[in-house]
C-alpha cells in the first residue's frame, strides 16, 4: 500500500530526492593541511589556502579521495577513474575565495543503489545518482551582535561528500529509512561519523507532488535539514503546502525553502534572483583526478563487512528473524556486542536480551552500546545462569537491573541476594500444598472444570517462593497434585 496524501481533489503522490552532505572523516582538510577537529577555537584551524589568500595553491588530500572511493564502493556504485574539480562561484561572507571547489560534470562516483528496510519487512531500492567531493564553507554566526555577523573559517575547506539520490523516495518513512541506512553504511565504512548534531551530516530535501501516473511536477528544495526526524517532517509539511497551493488554483514555483522545526512548516528563503548563477568552470589550479585501478581494488579488498551482508549472515547463522537482524546490524558496535553475547549460547535469546532489556537500560541510563553499564561478557554470564537453571527468566530480569545499578557480575548478585532458583522438588511440593490448602474454594472450582485457574496456582506458588521457584518444576508438580 503506497503512501498518499488525501487532498480535496483526491489522493496525491509525493516525490522526494535527497542531497546529503556528509563530512569526510580525515585529519586534515581536502586541499590544505589545517586540522578538521570539531569545537576548536575560532579561526585556529585555518590555512592561508582556506582563507583565500592570494597565490595559495590547493593540494588534494589522498585520504579524502580514498574515503570517497570507499563510500562509492559501499553504495555499490560506479567509481570514475577520471574525475575533475570545478569552481562553483557565489558570493557569501563565509566563503573567502568566492568559489567552492566542487565536482560538477565529472564526479568521482557515479550511479549506485541503497536498499532500505521499511515497516512490515518490506525492502526497497533507492537509486544513488552520484557522489562528489567538495569543500565545506566557513560558519556564520548571526546572533552574536545586532549589527554584525561573525565568521569562523575552521570548517572552510573541510572535505564533504555530496551524495545525491534519485527521486525514488515516495513517503516520509522512506526518506527516514534512506537516511538511516546511508548513515549506517557511512559509519561502518568509517568515512563519515554521521553525527547530525555536530553538522557532520545534513540533507537538502527536494519535494514535489503529483497525481498518480503523471510526470514529475515542479519541485522545491528544502535546505540544510539537520535531523532525520526533521527531514521526515519537512517532506510532509512541504508536500501538504504544495497540494494546498495546487488545489486552490495556484502553481508551485521552483525555489529554495527553509524548514522551521518550531512551526513545523517550510518557508521561502528570500534569495536574490541571481543567487543560483554559479558559473561553474574547471578549476585551473587542479589537474584531473586520475585513480589507479589497482589502488581502488586495494581499497575494496579492505572494506569491512557492511550492514546488508552482516544482516544476511545473522539471519542465516543465528536463525534470527530479519527484523531482529536489521536492528542489531544498524550500528557496528551493537552487532559486535551481540555476536559476543550470542557466541556459544542461544542466539535468539541473546537477541531478545540485547534488543529488549539492554536497549531499554541504555535508554534509561543515557548510555550507548560503547559505554554500556553491562558488558557483553557480563550479559553472557547472566544468560549462562539461566541456561544451567541457576535462576529463572523472571529473576534474571531482576538480576539484570541490579547489574545495571551496581556493575556487579550476575553470579555475585545471585549469591548476595540469595536468588538462586529452588529446584528442590520437596520444597516446591510443600509450597504448592500450602497454596492449595489456603485456596480450597479455587481448588473446588478448578476440579469442577475451571481450568484457567491453573495459572493462578502457578502464580501464587511462585509468589510464595519469592519468584525463585523453577517454573518447569512448579508446573510439573502442580499437574501431578491436581490430577
Amino acid at each position, binding site marked *: 500500500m503506497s503512501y498518499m496524501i488525501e487532498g480535496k481533489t483526491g489522493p496525491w503522490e509525493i516525490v522526494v530526492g535527497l542531497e546529503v552532505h556528509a563530512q569526510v572523516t580525515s585529519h586534515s582538510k581536502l586541499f590544505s593541511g589545517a586540522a578538521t577537529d570539531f569545537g576548536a577555537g575560532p579561526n585556529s584551524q585555518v*590555512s592561508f589556502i582556506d582563507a583565500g589568500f592570494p597565490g595559495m595553491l590547493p593540494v588534494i588530500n589522498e585520504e579524502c579521495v580514498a574515503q570517497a572511493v570507499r563510500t562509492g564502493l559501499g553504495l555499490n556504485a560506479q567509481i570514475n577513474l577520471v574525475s575533475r574539480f570545478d569552481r562553483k562561484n557565489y558570493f557569501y561572507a563565509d566563503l573567502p575565495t568566492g568559489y567552492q571547489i566542487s565536482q560538477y560534470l565529472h564526479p568521482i562516483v557515479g550511479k549506485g543503489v541503497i536498499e532500505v528496510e521499511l515497516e512490515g519487512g518490506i525492502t526497497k531500492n533507492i537509486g544513488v545518482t552520484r557522489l562528489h567531493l567538495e569543500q565545506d564553507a566557513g560558519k556564520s554566526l*548571526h546572533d552574536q551582535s545586532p549589527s554584525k555577523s561573525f565568521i*569562523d*573559517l575552521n570548517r572552510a575547506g573541510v572535505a564533504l561528500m555530496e551524495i545525491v539520490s534519485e527521486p525514488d523516495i515516495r513517503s516520509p518513512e522512506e526518506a527516514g529509512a534512506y537516511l538511516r541506512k546511508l548513515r549506517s553504511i557511512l559509519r561502518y565504512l568509517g568515512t563519515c561519523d554521521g553525527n547530525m548534531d555536530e553538522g557532520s551530516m545534513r540533507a537538502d530535501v527536494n519535494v514535489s507532488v503529483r497525481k498518480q501516473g503523471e510526470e514529475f511536477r515542479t519541485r522545491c528544495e528544502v535546505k540544510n535539514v539537520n535531523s532525520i526526524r526533521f527531514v521526515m517532517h519537512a517532506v510532509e509539511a512541504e508536500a501538504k503546502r504544495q497540494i494546498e497551493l495546487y488545489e486552490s488554483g495556484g502553481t508551485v514555483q521552483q525555489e529554495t525553502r527553509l524548514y522551521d522545526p518550531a512551526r513545523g512548516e517550510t518557508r521561502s528563503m528570500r534569495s536574490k534572483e*541571481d543567487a543560483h548563477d554559479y558559473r561553474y568552470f574547471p578549476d585551473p589550479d587542479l589537474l584531473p583526478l586520475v585513480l589507479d585501478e589497482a589502488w581502488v581494488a586495494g581499497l575494496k579488498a579492505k572494506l569491512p563487512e557492511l550492514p546488508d551482508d552482516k544482516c544476511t549472515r545473522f539471519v542465516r547463522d543465528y536463525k534470527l528473524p530479519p527484523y531482529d537482524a536489521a536492528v542489531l546490524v544498524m550500528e557496528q558496535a551493537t552487532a559486535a556486542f551481540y555476536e559476543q553475547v550470542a557466541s556459544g549460547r542461544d542466539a535468539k535469546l541473546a537477541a531478545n536480551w540485547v534488543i529488549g532489556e539492554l536497549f531499554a537500560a541504555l535508554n534509561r541510563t543515557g548510555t550507548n552500546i560503547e559505554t554500556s553499564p553491562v558488558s557483553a561478557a557480563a550479559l553472557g554470564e547472566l544468560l549462562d545462569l539461566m541456561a544451567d537453571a541457576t535462576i529463572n527468566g523472571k529473576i534474571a530480569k531482576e538480576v539484570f537491573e541490579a547489574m545495571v545499578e551496581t556493575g556487579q557480575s550476575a553470579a555475585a548478585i545471585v549469591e548476595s541476594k540469595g536468588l538462586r532458583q529452588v529446584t528442590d522438588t520437596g520444597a516446591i511440593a510443600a509450597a504448592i500444598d500450602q497454596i492449595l490448602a489456603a485456596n480450597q474454594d479455587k481448588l473446588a472450582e478448578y476440579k469442577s472444570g475451571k481450568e484457567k485457574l491453573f495459572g493462578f496456582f502457578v502464580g501464587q506458588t511462585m509468589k510464595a517462593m519469592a519468584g525463585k521457584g523453577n517454573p518447569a518444576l512448579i508446573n510439573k508438580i502442580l499437574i501431578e497434585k491436581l490430577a
Partner: protein
Amino acid sequence: MMSLDPATVRRIAKLARIRVEDAELPKLQADLAAILGYVEQLGEIDVTGIEPLSGAAQMALRMRADIVTDGGQTEAILANAPGREGDFFTVPKVVE
C-alpha cells in the same frame, strides 16, 4: 562579433560584486564583447573526436598525505581582517 546587451553587462558586474556607473556601461559593453569575440574564434576549430582537456599539462593530480601541517595561526589569518571581534572575522550583518 559577439553581441552583449547592457542588461547582461550589469548582471555580470552584479555577480562579481562590482559597481558600474551608467556612464561606464557602453565602454564595458564594447570591451567585453571584444574579449568574447576574440575567444569565440576557438569555435571555428573542428574538435570532433578530440577528448576535452582540463589542464595544459597531460598530468594527473598529485596527492598529499592526510597529516595536519597547517593552522594554529589565528593572528596571521585575522591580521588583514576589515572587521574583527575576539578571534572572529566580522562582516555587516547577513540576514536571511
